[in-house]
């Protein structure tokens, strides 16, 4: 399941079963899903019947008719094969997932205090049951941790072997059935019944069993069906034109013209493109709950990105000690370091590191200092240490100022103002100020800085070229947010974000007709995730968030939103490119078949045989062989997708029009001529 395990395109384990599937898919019920190929199959069947009749009555040109009939069926089979290959790649993944769904036993808790459990089969669990999962147990079904904390191995779904922590409350309470608890225990309330768990859904998704046609696919199918009808009209009227001219055209030739004209190339590859698109996401460890979501990803206009973890490294780091007048940098660094020794937060650790690197203050043993650590609380918004007769505190500037006010007034108003000035300066630069005081005396401010991820600025520039606006979401105050936004190069930011104003922002963008993508993990993100057009929930997130989003990122990496957008675009582009190619191909096919068709009674039309094809029969056969082989030739492109380049739409379009439009005009002229030479050389005609 990890991205590195991407199956190569030519893999016997996929190709061989796909060959068998190609025949299995001749089932009319399966063919009926694809209007163009269904028509080809119907026409092939009719032609076969006519051929058999001719065979019995001894008609002319049997060898030629036989070859046409054969290639008609190849056209259908190649289309089935393309779909089977695409599905086969998903099936391989589904199989590896299925292994994790082995039968488990669950410790179902019962009694008022839930103190006892009895062993029941995992499949018998109902939503709302509470189970105990201890070290070594497999979590029987999806659920939410209601008590306890445990490390869980989620390699089954993420492919990542490092264990993750799952605990009750907060944003890491969701557990997935099939994953294993490595240490400690948790009580889990079951949130999904057997058969509808996350893994079940994943299997269904990657297998394509639940595949619904997406809006664009439906529209494209209508277009293709319409084109098919137009060519029905163009072909069925030909026999009477021939009659008027005193000629006759065999049915098999008309069928050949018809099948080569209708958009079989895109018709054959359309579902493979869709399946491959979902598959690319899965390879990327992102699960889309519907194809619609993948398509919407390509259309996204606005990306809402959380600052922390996406734009900046997860943690702020101390970069500078700013003492007030009369206090040495060394003294401030010393106090800050002591106050942070027992502080295990990344910020605290970064202070210790900075003190060591810049002022050579070495770590000291808390025990020998007789120090007691005062942890951070939401009320005090400070942390620190109590030494013998001495108190050191660090924390939010306003909290520390309040603290020194309360203590004996050792800080002059000037010092207070100075601290406030430094703090404002730091905030303006996008940093977070952390005031430090010792025994009620203000020492100075530690500058904690958000570190913008390397390369992220370039990514945003790229997004801008794609026409996508990025909005940074942060809980910081507007001043800090503005500074980071400028540094990271995002287009806009939402400071002091709350679930409400996040939701409001999404609605506002949508009212302007824009499509919004965001990612989130917490329960309070759920409304916004549900409102967004593309909501990517982190796998580490809560059940609520996972239910609200329409994609789940198994790696819980918010940066992926950018790749998801690219995959969505790629899917749409591949469809457009192959449709254009398919339609442009018709020009050459007309020039191959029309002169051949009418040559018997209008020999002058031989002038239209600009390819110089050998005989009328070889011309018709070459066209239909080309038409069938091009499907196989384009399977790799359908599966890999047309490469997306982050250039403007105009440049992208002119490139693709050149390759697939002009290419689609020219390639069949060359291809048909080559096939004509080949089949004449080996004497098929």
């Amino acid at each position, binding site marked *: 399941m990890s991205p590195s395990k991407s199956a190569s395109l030519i893999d016997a384990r996929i190709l061989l079963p796909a060959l068998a599937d190609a025949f299995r898919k001749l089932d009319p019920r399966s063919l009926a899903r694809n209007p163009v190929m269904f028509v080809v199959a119907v026409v092939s069947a009719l032609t076969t019947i006519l051929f058999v009749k001719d065979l019995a009555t001894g008609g002319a040109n049997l060898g030629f008719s036989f070859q046409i009939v054969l290639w008609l069926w190849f056209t259908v089979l190649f289309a089935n094969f393309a779909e089977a290959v695409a599905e086969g790649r998903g099936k391989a993944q589904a199989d590896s997932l299925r292994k994790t769904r082995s039968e488990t036993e669950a410790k179902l808790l019962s009694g008022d205090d839930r103190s006892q459990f009895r062993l029941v089969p995992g499949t018998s669990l109902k939503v709302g049951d509470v189970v105990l999962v201890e070290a070594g147990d497999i979590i029987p079904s999806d659920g939410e941790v209601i008590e306890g904390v445990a490390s869980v191995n989620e390699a089954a779904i993420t492919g990542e072997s490092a264990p993750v922590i799952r605990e009750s409350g907060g944003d890491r309470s969701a557990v997935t059935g099939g994953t294993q608890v490595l240490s400690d225990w948790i009580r889990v309330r079951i949130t999904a019944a057997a058969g509808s768990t996350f893994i079940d859904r994943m299997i269904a998704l990657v297998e394509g069993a639940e595949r619904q046609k997406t*809006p664009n696919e439906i529209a494209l199918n209508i277009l293709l069906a319409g084109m098919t*009808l137009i060519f029905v009209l163009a072909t069925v009227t030909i026999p009477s034109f021939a009659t008027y001219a005193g000629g006759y055209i065999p049915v098999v030739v008309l069928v050949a013209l018809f099948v080569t004209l209708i958009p079989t190339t895109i018709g054959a590859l359309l579902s493979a493109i869709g399946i491959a698109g979902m598959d690319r996401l899965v390879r990327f460890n992102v699960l889309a709950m519907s194809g619609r979501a993948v398509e919407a990803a390509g259309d996204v206009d606005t990306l809402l990105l959380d600052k922390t973890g996406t734009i900046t490294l997860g943690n702020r780091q101390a970069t500078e000690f700013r003492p007030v007048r009369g206090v040495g940098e060394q003294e401030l660094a010393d106090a800050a370091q002591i106050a942070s020794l027992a502080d295990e937060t990344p910020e605290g650790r970064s202070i210790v590191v900075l003190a060591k690197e810049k002022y050579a203050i070495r770590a000291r043993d808390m025990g020998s200092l007789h120090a007691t650590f005062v942890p951070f609380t939401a009320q005090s918004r400070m942390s620190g240490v109590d030494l013998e007769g001495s108190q050191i505190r660090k924390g939010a500037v306003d909290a520390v100022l309040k603290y020194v006010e309360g203590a004996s007034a050792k800080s002059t108003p000037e010092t207070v103002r100075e601290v406030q000035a430094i703090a404002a300066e730091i905030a303006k630069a996008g940093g977070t100020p952390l005031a430090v005081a010792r025994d009620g005396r203000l020492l100075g401010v530690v500058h904690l800085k958000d570190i913008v991820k390397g390369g992220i600025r370039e990514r945003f520039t790229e997004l801008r070229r794609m026409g996508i606006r990025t909005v940074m979401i942060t809980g910081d105050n507007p001043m800090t947010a503005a500074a980071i936004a400028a540094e990271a190069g995002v287009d806009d930011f939402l400071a002091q974000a709350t679930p409400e104003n996040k939701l409001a922002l999404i609605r506002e963008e949508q009212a302007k007709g824009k499509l919004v993508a965001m990612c989130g993990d917490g329960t309070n993100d759920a409304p916004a995730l549900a409102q967004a057009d593309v909501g990517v929930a982190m796998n580490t997130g809560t059940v609520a968030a996972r239910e609200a989003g329409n994609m789940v990122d198994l790696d819980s990496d918010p940066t992926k939103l950018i790749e998801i957008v690219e995959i969505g675009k790629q899917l749409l582009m591949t469809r457009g490119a192959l449709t*254009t190619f398919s339609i442009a191909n018709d020009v050459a096919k007309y020039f191959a078949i029309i002169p051949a068709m009418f040559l018997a009674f209008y020999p002058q039309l031989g002038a239209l045989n600009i390819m110089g094809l050998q005989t009328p029969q070889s011309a018709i056969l070459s066209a239909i062989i080309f038409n069938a082989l091009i499907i196989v030739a384009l399977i790799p492109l359908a599966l890999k997708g047309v490469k997306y380049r982050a250039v403007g739409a105009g440049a992208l379009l002119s490139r693709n029009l050149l390759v697939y439009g002009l290419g689609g005009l020219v390639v069949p002229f060359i291809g048909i001529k080559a096939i004509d030479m080949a089949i004449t050389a080996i004497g098929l005609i």
Partner: protein
Amino acid sequence: MTLFGWIQILVFCAIVLALVKPLGSYITRVFKGERTFLSPVLAPVERGLYALAGTHEREEQHWSAYAVALLLFNLAGLLLLYGLQRFQGLLPLNPDGMGAVAPDLAFNTAVSFVTNTNWQGYGGESTMSYLTQMLGLTVQNFVSGATGIAIAIALIRGFARASAQSVGSFWVDLTRATLYLLLPLCILLTLAYVALGVPQTLDPSVTATTLEGAQQTIARGPVASQLAIKMLGTNGGGFFNANSAHPFENPDAISNLIQMVSIFAIGAALTNVFGRMVGNERQGWAILSAMGVLFIAGVAICYWAEAAGNPLVQGLGLQGGNLEGKEMRFGIPLSALFAVVTTAASCGAVNAMHGSFTALGGMIPLINMELGEVIVGGVGAGFYGIVLFVVLAIFVAGLMVGRTPEYLGKKIEAREVKMAMLAILCLPAGMLVFTAIAVVLPGAVASAGNSGPHGFSEILYAYTSAAANNGSAFASLSANTLWYNTTLGITMLVGRFLVIIPALAIAGSLAAKKSVPASAGTFPTDGPLFVGLLVGVILIVGGLTFFPALAVGPIVEHLAMLAGQSF
């Protein structure tokens, strides 16, 4: 081809282009309900008409109500026109004592004028009373043109509006198109034609004694007024059977130029109206450019083919181009230009006999119509016709920029594609299916004036002209038979209303959509890339369908001519 010939063609193009902006600005104001310089005179009339009809200027319609109103109005027009023809013998203003028109011909003619086709299975001066011509045909010339304009405006509103339920009021649009646009321009044009010598009288035909002493009946009548709307409304139904080749209907090069310009004027200006109403005139110019590319290509081929002439005739010692069926006062370039203009737009008036063109020269008018007359096109009809192709082009190519295709901020989705396909499907259905039946019916084939590929082209041309609502003919087909009157009538109805309804459905569905703001990721639709794409899609989707039919018609005739064989 001569330099002088090309100068004449370029002068025509320059005049049409010069009119685009002023006329576009005026039409935009009219349909936005803003004041124009004619408002002081016409606004009270307009208000009076609404009061009389019990409709309100601000009462707008959902697209379906708009379509129903349009269909009812056209049905009423159809019945009235049919009745007028059947009872004209009993009605006044019939100085030449014309009798009732036969039922099948009356049906054909009624459909023909209501659908803006003006296919004429009759000779005007020998069949229709003045009352029928004026109250029936001329009125329909106005309102069928106005109907087309109304649909184009409704469709433009679909693009210009966002999250809207209505696309305008059919009654208001119809009234404004007639009152502010067609009527004033026609009065102007009528006066110009009269000044150039076109008759305008209610007196009966005159009888003259020729030099040989024979008696000749010279038909006349209210020609100038009908001529004005025949061109401006892209109707094409001539007062005389010879249409604009008749010296009374098109006396000289100036009247010829005015007529050609008035065929294109409104159609070309509507692209500008579109640009103005969606807030970016370049969008309109882009569409007009695509039309222009196809137009110039058509003119060049047609002019070249006619100027090159027929080598078989030249072999007999006649030098020069093909002058058969052309009026000497117009010559080859102006005849070729007129033929391309009249078939590019859905006019159908002719100043030369298309059936006498060379095979390739005659193929261009045929192709113009087969493409759905989207090259400027009939008033309104050309615009909504090309928008159908725009929808397809945008859908196919738009996907290639990696987004759900958008045009002017509107997403092109399943419903729009479905409607566009339906409308585009109607044309080959009407053109090819009836041709295929007719060419194997001995009775229908007998109507053709020629045999072989040329006879085939005559029949193909008739159905193509009917489905495209053009009205011109490959002249030597005797189409006034029960079979042709009926089937051509049906074809005209299919080609008109089965395109209009999907076009209005698109208007409604677009109007209801949100408008997506353009970004760097949006496919730019106002540049040469889009123009090239649109031209390609029109030729491949619209044109390729007809390749087999063209191959056994004009193409084989041309190749045979080169090989020394004629039909």
